[in-house]
């Protein structure tokens, strides 16, 4: 069951990522991305990370994807289905990409990971909250400040035009 679910979500993720990458229309890319995010969220659920999964859906779909769509709509001729993106240096890029993929696969399969799977799963939210407020307090605060800065900065840059 678990395995079947994994293959389903993996297939969904990779297929939609493929749509995102290889489609010529920006909007189609965005739709592809939507399903990629969804697939990745499914993968998180399989990895027993429910909070991260929901955070993924909320922030990526509800935040980043909507932002991207707005970006597309505000920076192109809005009407007219013809919303194409051209590509450049496809052949060398493909060679490099395959090369990197080859490296990654080789590294992954050759490395002896110290696998020690957990067999019991407890709710993650409370534990995550505790970690964020204790061991990761400083990163947490820094990220908060970063977010605030990004918010103000983005508003400022976009407004100045």
């Amino acid at each position, binding site marked *: *069951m678990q395995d079947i679910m994994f293959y389903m979500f993996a297939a969904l993720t990779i297929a939609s990522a493929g749509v995102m990458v290889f489609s010529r229309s920006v909007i189609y890319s965005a739709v592809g991305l*939507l399903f990629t995010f969804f697939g990745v969220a499914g993968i998180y659920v399989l990895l027993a990370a429910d*909070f991260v999964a929901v955070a993924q859906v*909320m922030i990526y779909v*509800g935040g980043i994807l909507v932002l991207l769509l707005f970006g597309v709509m505000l920076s192109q001729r*809005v009407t007219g289905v013809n919303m194409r993106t051209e590509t450049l240096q496809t052949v060398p890029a493909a060679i490099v990409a395959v090369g990197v993929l080859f490296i990654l696969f080789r590294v992954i399969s050759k490395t002896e990971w110290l696998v020690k799977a957990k067999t019991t799963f407890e709710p993650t939210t409370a534990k995550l909250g505790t970690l964020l407020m204790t061991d990761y307090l400083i990163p947490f605060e820094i990220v908060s400040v970063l977010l605030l800065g990004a918010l103000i900065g983005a508003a400022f840059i976009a407004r100045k035009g």
Partner: protein
Amino acid sequence: MPVLSANHAVINALSILPTFSETLTNVLFMVLGAVIITGLAALLALVSVYLERKVSAHMQDRLGPMEVNTEIPILKNIGHGWAQTLADAFKLLLKEDIVPAAADKKLHLLAPFIVFAATLAAFAVLPFGRNLIPSDLNVGVFYLIAISSFVVVGIILAGWASNNKWSLLGAMRSAAQIVSFEIPASVSVLVVIMAVGSLNLGEIVEFQEGGIHRWLIWRFFPFNLLAFFIFFVASLAELNRAPFDLPEAESEIIAGFHTEYSGMKFAMFFLAEYANMFLVGVIISTLFLGGWSSPFGSFLNSAPFQVFWVFVKSFAIIFVHMWLRWTLPRVRVDQLMYTSWKVLTPFAFVSMLGVGLWMILIQ
């Protein structure tokens, strides 16, 4: 979700055949659950549409649908045009599906499915009774907020795929509106989460059991009451309902993002909208009004009554939604944004701070 609770090690240990049969049962259960939820959502949406017609009619001093009926003996006597929405639904399903020539056909088809699927997915965690939660997630509330963001994407896609200025404007308005109002809504939900200390919807309801005085709306007075009002107003806006129905403002942009939709696809938007109304009703009643718990403590609090209370509370909320729609005029765009950013958001934070300080001071 069964997936979550499935034990990896145990499954590995089983031989192939039982694994297969278990998989099959699991799949069957999931399919069955999905069918029930879909049916329920559709049914509730139909009821809500019917209600809307009757409520609006009575508010405007007329009768509304009265004629449509069946020949089936018992149902015949109900009258009051009870079959009107059913007939309309069939009409919509049978209508020709018109797609504009310049539209992007694939996305035009995909958009209503995204909206409808997101709405249905949200139904999966609604608590209808102590043991009647289709999927009792640990992160239930968070899941609800997250899944509802799919709707925005669907709406934007619908608006863009129609290749129509009004559609696109409506979609952009709608998206901007939903995204803006998500902030006060989420913060006021946070107030509840802080008070209860759990994201689990069932636990939130259990926290409020034991009578009307234990409902969260009265706790931390007046901060939770404030949060309730903020959430209520924000939910109106997120549903694109009057007085915040700018995305569908007929006099300005025809019908907004679903201008170019007809037939079955339109029906899906339509159903999703009313299913969402019910969804919001359940969410509000769960978060603030005690959910399935009876207002009289343990009196009338058995399983069937729990479902009853959820429905009563939700339809009460829906009735207020309708009441507002047929009473208030539409606001302007700037007023809308003002409401969200300069009124609701600051007050939502005030409410959160208030509850937080309250909890610290009591400890």
